[in-house]
């Protein structure tokens, strides 16, 4: 596919680093103020397939050793493409540019940092048009839903700034849409079975407001993947009827999960950790675990090194919920799901969370109201469940109200009647009018009583 390209193209170049002294030129990067990469989906007539445009000086006209403002603008068209898929396609620019020998691409969007090596320049990589060609071929072969693709490189400093401003608006609109899209607004969820583990058939159900457990795939990613690879591991799930909006139970989801698990899992409540929680395989990012002493949830993430407030480390908690099982009160989840407005909504959402590692707290700050987030204890505040109780009372965590309404059962349920055990001590027996007092005991084991004759008389008469 790349015989006419002067440099090599392949996966092995994906991580190559170009040092300052090896580089021919730097595009974007920390020294440069305006840089971006953007993909837009257009109507077919608006895209000229295979066209590569360079606005501003081409690669061989740039001065060696210098850093420049830079923009990559890709326009695509195809029957199955839509605006929602722009981000997914855009993410691949990083991957594909890196495949080119001697070209390094770091970060994304308005943070891109590209370097081209002197070696590759000498070999013949002297025009952006070559890079454009490579990108087009890779995009079309990896994502066949792209029917037409046009690439524009911008090195003209003013033009870069102008288009950067437009790009920023596009990014913001995208993010707002992604965050704003509600489960209620779509008809289709997606199922993913990409997990390589030994869980009995487990399916992740991914909705706009419920990220995959592994944290790697959003509903948009699924949408794209299912289009690109309709027979692949990601497949659409018709929502069906909503049985319970708070718990998140849908007829379509139940059906899909029952089929996929060959009947082992019949119902799923998407937004709860009780009853029929969503299953996990083994690669979830975090665990929500129930703390009965305070009737609340603790959260812990995979990277957390110590033990949680109940004395168990992540790994032990993970074990109890992995393997595709529905375990009441123990729930494998992703960090993005923690940021969702539907997070554990059936159980009380964030007001039911009482403990989480400090590091994890910072990851969700901004998505959870500070007033509640600050009332959640971390490993820095408390070391065990008793201290946790005190802390929650002190800060006035909403969970305390739950205690007042229904105090957590701490008393032991005493067995209704003492078991009919033999009393250990022998008690003197009153037999036939005799009363025994004092004396001593002889205990014998494995006694055999042999009687030549045993006479049993009926009493009385």
């Amino acid at each position, binding site marked *: 596919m790349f015989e006419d390209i002067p440099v090599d193209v392949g996966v092995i170049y994906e991580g190559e680093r170009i040092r300052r002294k090896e580089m021919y030129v730097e595009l974007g990067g920390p020294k440069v103020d305006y840089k971006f990469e953007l993909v837009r989906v257009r109507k077919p007539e608006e895209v000229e397939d295979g066209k590569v445009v360079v606005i501003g000086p081409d690669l061989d006209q740039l001065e060696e050793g210098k850093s420049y403002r830079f923009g990559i603008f890709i326009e695509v068209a195809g029957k199955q493409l839509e605006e929602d898929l722009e981000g997914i396609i855009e993410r691949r620019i990083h991957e594909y540019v890196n495949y080119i020998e001697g070209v390094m691409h770091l970060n994304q969007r308005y943070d891109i940092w590209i370097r081209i090596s002197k070696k590759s320049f000498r070999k013949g990589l002297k025009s952006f048009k070559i890079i454009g060609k490579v990108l087009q071929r890779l995009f079309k072969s990896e994502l066949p839903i792209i029917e037409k693709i046009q690439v524009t490189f911008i090195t003209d400093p003013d033009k870069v700034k102008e288009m950067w401003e437009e790009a920023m608006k596009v990014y913001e609109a995208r993010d707002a849409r992604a965050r704003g899209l509600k489960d209620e607004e779509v008809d289709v969820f997606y199922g993913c079975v990409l997990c390589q583990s030994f869980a009995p058939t487990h399916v992740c159900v991914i909705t706009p407001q419920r990220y995959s457990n592994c944290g790697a795939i959003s509903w948009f990613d699924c949408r794209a993947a299912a289009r690109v690879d309709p027979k692949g591991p990601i497949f659409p799930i018709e929502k069906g009827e909503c049985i319970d909006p708070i718990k998140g139970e849908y007829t379509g989801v139940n059906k899909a999960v029952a089929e996929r698990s060959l009947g082992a899992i019949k119902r799923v409540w998407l937004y709860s950790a009780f009853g029929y929680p969503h299953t996990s395989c083994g690669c979830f990012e975090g665990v929500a675990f129930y703390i009965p002493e305070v009737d609340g949830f603790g959260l812990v993430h995979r990277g957390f090194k110590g033990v949680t407030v109940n004395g168990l480390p992540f790994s032990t908690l993970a074990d*109890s919920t*992995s393997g595709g099982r529905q375990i009441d*009160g123990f729930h494998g989840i992703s960090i993005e799901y923690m940021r969702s407005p539907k997070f554990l909504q059936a159980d009380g959402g964030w007001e039911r969370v009482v403990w989480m590692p400090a590091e994890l707290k910072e990851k969700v700050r901004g998505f959870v109201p500070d007033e509640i987030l600050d009332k959640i204890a971390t490993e820095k505040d408390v070391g065990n469940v008793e201290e946790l109780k005190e802390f929650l009372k002190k800060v006035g965590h909403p969970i305390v109200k739950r205690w007042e309404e229904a105090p957590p059962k701490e008393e032991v349920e005493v067995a209704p009647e003492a078991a009919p*055990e033999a009393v250990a001590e022998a008690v003197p027996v009153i037999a036939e009018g005799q009363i025994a007092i004092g004396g001593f005991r002889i205990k014998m084991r494995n006694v055999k009583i042999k009687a030549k004759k045993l006479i049993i008389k009926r009493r009385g008469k």
Partner: protein
Amino acid sequence: MPWKAISPIEVYKLLPRTNCKKCGEENCMAFAVRLVNLEVKPEKCTPLVEDPKYRKNYEKLKELLRPMVREIEVRSEKKTVIIGGEYVMFRHEMTYLNPPPIAIDVDDTMDKEELAKRIDIAENFRYEYIGRELTLDLIAVRSVSNDPEQFKKTVRFVSNNSSLPLVLCSLNPDVIKAGLAEVPGGRPLLYAATKDNWREMAELARKHDLPLVVSSPGNLDMLMTLANTLEKYGLSDLALDPGTFVGSKGLSYTLSAFTMLRWRACNEDYRLAGYPLVGTPISVWSSMNGDKQTKAWWEAITAAMLITRYADLLILHSIEGWVLLPLVILRFNIYTDPRKPVAVEPGLRVIGDPDENSPVMVTGNFALTYYIVAGDIEAGKINCYLLVIDTEGLSVESAVPGRKFLPEKVAEVLESSGIAEKVKHRILIIPGKAARLSGDIEDATGWKVMVGPLDSKDIPKFVEEKWRPEVIEELMKE
């Protein structure tokens, strides 16, 4: 059908909930989680066991957590062996827990020399496999003489010269009784109660509180009859021997018997089948015609079949290394927890006879990965250094996107292995699947990175073509 997973909350409700910490956990919920993971036994909660007001809960908890196949301990003064204790029929439903111990037999007509030789093998058999030591577990003492005195002498000799727990094998209760006198501190397994001797055997087992095998080769009705009767007799540590047959008149029966019994125990909770299953590949030696090697061969085959399907104990006669080696490794493999990848120790491995110009390669510590990579390098007769980094037991393919193939770890192992003193160059060959980390690894280690092939089978080719002095020189210059 599969074993139902329990929520820690269900378990928690049956605990004292006082958070007294006597079990070693911070609180009762933590203990509940460990119970559910089968990491600890309920008996660790001493209040639960000792305080009568928790008696009912303790019984309920034991029942809730009860394995579908009874767990039995067989002990010598020095060692304990566990038989049974399984929860699931198929390992992928959760995991198997207790690898079937292997018993090597001796008989009471063997002279001291032969006894000593066989005891030595049983005691000292060792094979190192991915950092673990694989061993044998028991000695089965059989009475060929049918003479209680002779049996007694032999049991004494074995007891005095070995540390392993014993299986006492005779269908003559008087012989067994005599043998028992020579294992005062132990808890041997008695083989076996049959339809002809069950009362006396049961009595011995009951009196001395010993586990007892129930044997009915070829007749499952009788097997259940015996188990049922002995249960009512008061015995609870029973094991079942449905009969191990070979050849065209019985191998199929044996496989079916083990399968049916295990199915009924695990999937139907049929209590009479819920006892450990005893496989006796040793029977090949009396049922087959042929030379020793043929018998040993078929003993290995039969044992492998039973390891794969549900045997909780195996009695073997062969002491040949080539018979036992595949069996102990297979046993280890099948009884690995499928949910936890097996890992090898990170660190430096020397393959072949490398010198200061030999390549240095990196890979993850998933046992399978390590073995395949090392195997491919060896098969290609390459001399090199292989650095194994801790990817938490994940394969390279999973570790890279899972962010477990960390450049810092590479740097760590590089440092601790002292490899810099062993080679002149400073080039690391990384797996093709870790290509995207090449820059990061260079940054973290200060070494140059060469991206190797995607599949380790191409390593020999790669080394031949790319590991050349010119290439090395070039790279070192940059």
